[in-house]
């Protein structure tokens, strides 16, 4: 079979010593930052992006991917032991995980999370491999108007799924797109919004912006709330779930994995959404909903499987269609650009070893994470005793050096400082930053495809509605908008997305 042949190529790439090493390094780092609250995969990947310049492209992507799904493992440890989400995708794990820890079953909760994540990781790897071919073939049918419609759908869904009012999410997307227009217009060579600053001719760099908003401004926010960590000090003994535990968690893991795999593919989806949706589903289906919030093992098994599956399958739209579905994927676009790889259907045909190697490395990485997390859990918990006042200057140092290394100049550092202030304004106004970044990343491609489609149709905008594929995609976006404005659904969404 083709699939197995491709996976064989992938595993031979992933098993190269250098790639194994970088996968391990990515998983280790991902676990580390996953455990630490206040430092997420986004800032970490942004920080390391310039440094990956020196690596082989496949090693670079394998490492960065490892950070993303590794963080899903690490985040659950903090959630269970300290009742704080190490990652936003493990918010729901705090609900039942910490309760289990208080009942002296922290070990069981941790191994449930790890086993769920591992199982989900395996399934998502296969899903990624199986879906990649057909979706890539579909992408080749896409012309400018279809890509335009697809990206509009992605941005609409991303705004629907971000926290806060939908219209403000859309506003952030449009603002991000406007910011993306800074720099040289490729068709006419005009400098737009650059004010004669040569560093802006190539556009606003994504990394300083992400670093300012998600690195520096987050720190200011975290410093405002000095909450004390309440560590569960008991020794973590007995990692093994009982037979009864297994009976309850296996169906939850299966459901969580399925849900996460599906929601990860959705533009705007990913780990966070999957975990919330899974928790709601488990609670709905359970015969004992009253146990939720008091240490129900399904409340860990489901969401922890879902977030890992979602993290991995969110690579599908990026690798096959070239459209990043969330902000971490947007950063992966940046990583691919550094190595002159155009994300999209051509990755699979032009760089098959990179494509399949990345997918295979995810399975290898999940295995490493299982080993890293369960026996070493005591070590990770120790990390949490480092006070934030020592931790955040370290984050600032790594971010600053990372930003400097983009071009070896100080301009990007000033840029990051400016976006720190801007990011703080957004936090205070409760405006979601993720749609802004997606708009920034997709903006140039949307303009380009819009222009090309309009040239081909001689200025007739109805072409977007007469082509069946683009009409279908735009209709889906319209349905999403209509649904979100219905009062009943709006209330449900607010309930599901509130943190």
């Amino acid at each position, binding site marked *: 079979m083709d699939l197995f042949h491709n996976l064989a190529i992938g595993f031979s790439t992933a098993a190269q010593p250098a790639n194994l090493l970088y996968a391990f390094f990515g998983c280790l780092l991902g676990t580390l930052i996953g455990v630490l609250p206040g430092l997420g995969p986004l800032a970490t990947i942004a920080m390391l992006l310039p*440094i990956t310049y*020196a690596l082989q492209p496949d090693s670079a992507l394998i490492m960065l991917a490892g950070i993303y799904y590794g963080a899903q493992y690490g985040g659950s440890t903090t959630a269970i032991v300290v009742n704080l989400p190490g990652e936003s995708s493990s918010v729901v794990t705090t609900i039942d995980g910490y309760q289990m820890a208080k009942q002296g079953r922290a070990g069981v909760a941790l191994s449930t999370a790890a086993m769920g994540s591992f199982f989900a990781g395996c399934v998502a790897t296969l899903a990624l491999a199986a879906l990649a071919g057909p979706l890539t073939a579909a992408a080749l049918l896409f012309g400018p108007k279809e890509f335009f419609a697809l990206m509009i759908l992605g941005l609409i869904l991303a705004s629907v799924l971000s926290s806060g*009012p939908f*219209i*403000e999410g*859309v*506003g952030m997307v*449009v*603002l991000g*797109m*406007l910011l993306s*227009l800074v720099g040289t*217009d490729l*068709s*006419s060579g*005009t400098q*737009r*919004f650059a004010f004669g600053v040569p560093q802006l001719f190539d556009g606003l760099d994504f990394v300083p912006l992400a670093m300012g908003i998600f690195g*520096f401004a987050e*720190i*200011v926010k975290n*410093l*405002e709330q*000095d909450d004390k960590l309440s560590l569960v000090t008991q020794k973590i003994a007995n990692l093994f779930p009982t037979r009864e535990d297994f009976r309850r968690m296996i169906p939850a893991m299966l459901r969580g994995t399925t849900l996460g795999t599906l929601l990860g593919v959705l533009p705007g989806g990913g780990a966070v959404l999957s975990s919330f949706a899974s928790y709601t589903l488990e609670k709905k289906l359970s015969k004992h909903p009253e146990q939720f919030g008091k240490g129900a093992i399904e409340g860990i098994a489901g969401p922890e499987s879902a977030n890992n599956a979602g993290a991995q399958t969110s690579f599908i739209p990026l690798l096959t269609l070239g459209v990043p579905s969330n902000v971490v994927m947007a950063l992966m676009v940046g990583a691919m650009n550094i190595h002159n790889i155009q994300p999209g259907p051509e990755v699979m045909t032009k760089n098959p070893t990179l494509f399949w190697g990345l997918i295979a490395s995810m399975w290898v990485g999940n295995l490493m994470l299982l080993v890293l997390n369960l026996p070493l859990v005591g070590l990770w918990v120790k990390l949490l005793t480092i*006070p*934030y*006042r*020592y931790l*955040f*200057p*370290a984050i*600032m*140092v790594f971010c*600053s*050096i990372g930003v*400097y*290394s983009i071009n*070896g100049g*100080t301009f990007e*550092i*000033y840029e*990051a*400082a400016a976006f*720190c*202030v801007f990011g*703080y*304004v957004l936090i*205070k*106004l*409760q*405006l979601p930053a993720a749609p802004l970044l997606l708009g920034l990343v997709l903006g140039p491609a949307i*303009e380009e495809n819009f*222009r090309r489609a*309009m*040239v081909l*149709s*001689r*200025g*007739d*905008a109805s072409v977007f509605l007469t082509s069946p594929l683009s009409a279908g995609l735009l209709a889906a976006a319209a349905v999403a908008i209509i649904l979100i404005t219905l009062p009943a659904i709006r209330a449900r969404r607010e309930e599901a997305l509130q943190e």
Partner: protein
Amino acid sequence: MTGPAIRDQRAFVSGALFLGFAIFFFVMALNYPAGTAARMGPGYFPRLLAIVLAAIGLTVMLRAVRGTAERQALHRWDVKGLAWVTGSVVLFALLLFPLGLVGSLFVLIVVSSRASHEFTWKGALANAAILIVLCLLVFVYGLGLQLPVRPALFN
């Protein structure tokens, strides 16, 4: 009871922010030729986006003053924390070349540490020493990044 005329201040300011950006980009975009729909110039798409953003901004502002809007005040700002954090980054950029990596990192770490309520000189200095050594080991010797390690005077 009548409160302030603007019921949802958070949303109102958010809308005004959108509107402000929209006006700024629209006015700037007037400098670039718009072209026609079939042959768009560099000014076409920015104007279109700016108009959409202005409409969104106005809608958000109107929703904020509606009688049914939820009452929300603006959040308090931690100007001091923001100033220490942002200031330390700006200082790092200013001092990187004149002082070299070690000196500018020292300033970055000590100044940013002031943003914490639990700041102590002893802790910040010890942290600075550890982080500087770590950076030199990882970035300069380990990864071989091109960083200005020595002060400009010695080059």
